[in-house]
């Protein structure tokens, strides 16, 4: 097994003199592995052509990658006259990625291969308002269960979709500390807990970002280069895929459209407050109280609770007041999204979130507003659809976030020689820091609780 690459990053200067073999091999290994992984090259000849490396170097590097279990050359391709070429395939089964989605009312967990394909998933109801420590404990329990069910495979990474923007400057290789995504999170080391429990690098992204990635790679956005995803829930956010990749902006906080001010009649407020699921539920309750909605009034009379989903179901059944509530939300969302569409010229707009996915009325009125306010050149071939992936788009997207993070050149070149991301020097450093912190915390004598 080759030794760990000693390529230094993050400001460490390179040594002078002739580089070691491991240093010169790493960049070509990265290039070749990514050509194979993305299926741009499937034979040795194609690798030589795309990488512009010599036959001997390609043979040597493929030998190393095969030895590391990251590439497989056992299959034969179709002959085109002479001997059938040996196919070079990425071994997506070499490792697994644990994925999770945390949103306001549900927790989803899953496991994916290194190509980002989801192999197993489970979703359960939860409350985000509970302490982060309880949430982390449940997450660890479910992760352990899923790993056990998969016969404890080698873990390459953990990727979590969280219900808020993850501001990290957009350039971190992986999460090296727990960001304050939500109030209370800064006081609990979620990332450090996961690293300590599973010994794998962690990625965090906002739910809108992971859903955008999921939709782009496995849903309606497949084969699209420019896509806008709009998530409608308690919060309203947007994700942008530009030129086939996720656009994260300067701070990793793209798409916070929920705070855009909108006006409806004599009322003004943020888009979230005027069109989000809390507003839909509140208007639904009013409609039940003042008798405008007989369906919702009947539900209340029987002791039922009105959430946005009940309003959506009532609208689907033809309840006039509920139809109006959802149409109004759809119109407001459509107006804001139209501005984005005029600016960004997407090929596809995907509406997701439980209300948008289960309700035709909100989608129809959003469509009407978007098409009505878009420049004819923007709306000519623009498709506006609802997501068909449900919460799976978040899990699939989280897996893609991890695979892209793992195999991004700046990350990969520092672990490829060992075949495992745990060998990355920054990850090693992070683990040492976590271990040291534990020792120090153990030494501190705390005063008794008063």
């Amino acid at each position: 097994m080759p030794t760990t690459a000693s390529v230094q990053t993050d400001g460490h200067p390179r040594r002078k003199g002739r580089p070691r073999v491991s240093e010169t091999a790493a960049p070509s290994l990265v290039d070749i592995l990514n050509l194979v992984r993305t299926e741009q090259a499937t034979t040795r000849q194609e690798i030589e052509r795309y990488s512009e490396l010599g036959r001997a170097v390609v043979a040597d590097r493929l030998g190393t990658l095969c030895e590391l279990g990251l590439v497989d050359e056992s299959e034969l391709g179709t002959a085109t006259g002479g001997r059938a070429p040996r196919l070079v395939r990425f071994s997506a089964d070499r490792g697994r990625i644990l994925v999770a989605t945390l949103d306001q009312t549900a927790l989803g967990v899953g496991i994916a291969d290194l190509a980002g394909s989801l192999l197993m998933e489970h979703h359960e109801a939860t409350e985000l308002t509970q302490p982060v420590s309880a949430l982390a404990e449940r997450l660890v329990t479910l992760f352990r269960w899923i790993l056990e069910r998969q016969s404890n495979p080698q873990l390459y990474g953990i990727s979590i979709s969280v219900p808020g923007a993850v501001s990290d400057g957009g350039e971190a290789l992986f999460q090296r500390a727990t960001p304050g995504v939500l109030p209370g999170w800064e006081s609990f080391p979620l990332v450090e807990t996961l690293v300590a429990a599973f010994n794998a690098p962690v990625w965090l992204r906002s739910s809108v970002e992971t859903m955008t990635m999921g939709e782009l790679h496995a849903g309606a956005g497949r084969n699209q280069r420019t896509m806008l995803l709009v998530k409608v829930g308690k919060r309203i956010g947007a994700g942008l895929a530009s030129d086939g990749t996720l656009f994260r902006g300067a701070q990793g906080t793209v798409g916070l459209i929920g705070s855009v001010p909108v006006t409806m009649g004599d009322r003004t407020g943020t888009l979230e407050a005027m069109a989000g699921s809390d507003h839909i539920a509140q208007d639904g309750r009013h409609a039940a109280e003042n008798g405008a909605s007989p369906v919702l009034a009947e539900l209340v009379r029987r002791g039922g609770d009105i959430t946005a989903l009940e309003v959506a179901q009532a609208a689907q059944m033809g309840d006039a007041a509920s139809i109006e509530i959802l149409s109004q939300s759809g119109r407001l969302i459509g107006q804001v999204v139209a501005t984005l569409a005029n600016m960004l010229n997407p090929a596809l707009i995907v509406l997701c979130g439980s209300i948008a996915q289960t309700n035709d009325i909100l989608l129809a009125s959003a469509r009407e507003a978007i098409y009505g306010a878009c420049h004819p050149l923007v709306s000519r071939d623009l498709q506006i659809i609802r997501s068909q992936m449900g919460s799976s788009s978040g899990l699939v997207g989280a897996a893609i976030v991890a695979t892209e993070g793992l195999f991004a050149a700046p990350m990969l070149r520092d672990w490829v020689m060992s075949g495992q991301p745990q060998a990355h020097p920054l990850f090693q450093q992070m683990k040492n820091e976590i271990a040291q912190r534990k020792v120090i915390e153990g030494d501190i004598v705390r005063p008794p609780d008063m």
Partner: protein
Amino acid sequence: MAITGLGPHGERASAPERVLLLPEDMERARASGFRVAIVLHTLESDWAKQQLSGIVGTLGNCGVAVIDVVDCAFNPELQIEALERLTLEAPDAIISLPVANSKVAAPHTRVSAAGIKLVLLDNVPTGLLPGKDYISLVSADNFGLGKIAAEGLSPHLREGAEVGVLGYDADFFATNEREIAFVKWMQVNRPDVSLRVQRFPALSAVAATTRTLAEAHPELAGLFVVWDTPAMTAARVLETMGRKIPMTTVDLGQEAAIGLAANEPLMAIAAQQPFRQGETAASITVTALLGRLAPAWVALPGLAVTARNVVECFQTVWRMPAPHEVLRKLSLVGLKRSDRHLP
């Protein structure tokens, strides 16, 4: 009872009433002359027979012809073959219970790609999406079933007891949910209890897995098995080992009902309602065939059954009288009028 679980992709459950068929729907369906095929995991079990009877009866009420009913005998190869053959016959819809996960995913995807409406029962192969690859999934609230089983076992467990969980070692939505829910309920409500999980890969391995579990944990004081057929096998194995352990399981099979009536070894059962699930699957199929929006996941609540309500629950679930043995164990037959104590 409220639905406590989430669907295979995190969907919120829709109630069966969402797809209630009105007389005008039935009239329209009758005028359309639809053809539907059914592919089940087995036709041998009572559960499958009841579900089939719910499906066929409801489709009959709507004038929909059932052109084939396939028994896959739990065999993925047979299911793949059946789906490929049926896709060529081009029925308007296929109702299928996927017997495996990734193995049968592609043939199910090909069904919907061929323009045939696909309604799934109990399980969704990973990667298949509602609205795109299938219309709807109909299942029991399996998460709720696991909770009912845990709640039913808890009063029979002393403080600090060791409890076995016999799970199914296959990636199957229904059994996964039951196992997770049982374990979660115990961890939250009975943190004093230690859980020992073992999984059997096939029904033929249940006896050996039970023996391994019981031998490894001689102090085992409770057992949950993810459905009734393996539960009864486990009960027999434990009996031969001279172990009396209170048990709970899912599904009110005939043998399980007898065990429950005797309060030995079964203390509680979380029962599915296969007939209603069948009716619902048929209603969804007709809803989709009429071009109306169908919910991604329709779930039916489970019934909490103990010796006290086993007779009426058996009638509700199976639409037939409880077995004579059950009635006898509960002293509802074989007694003189004067011996009966009315409440």
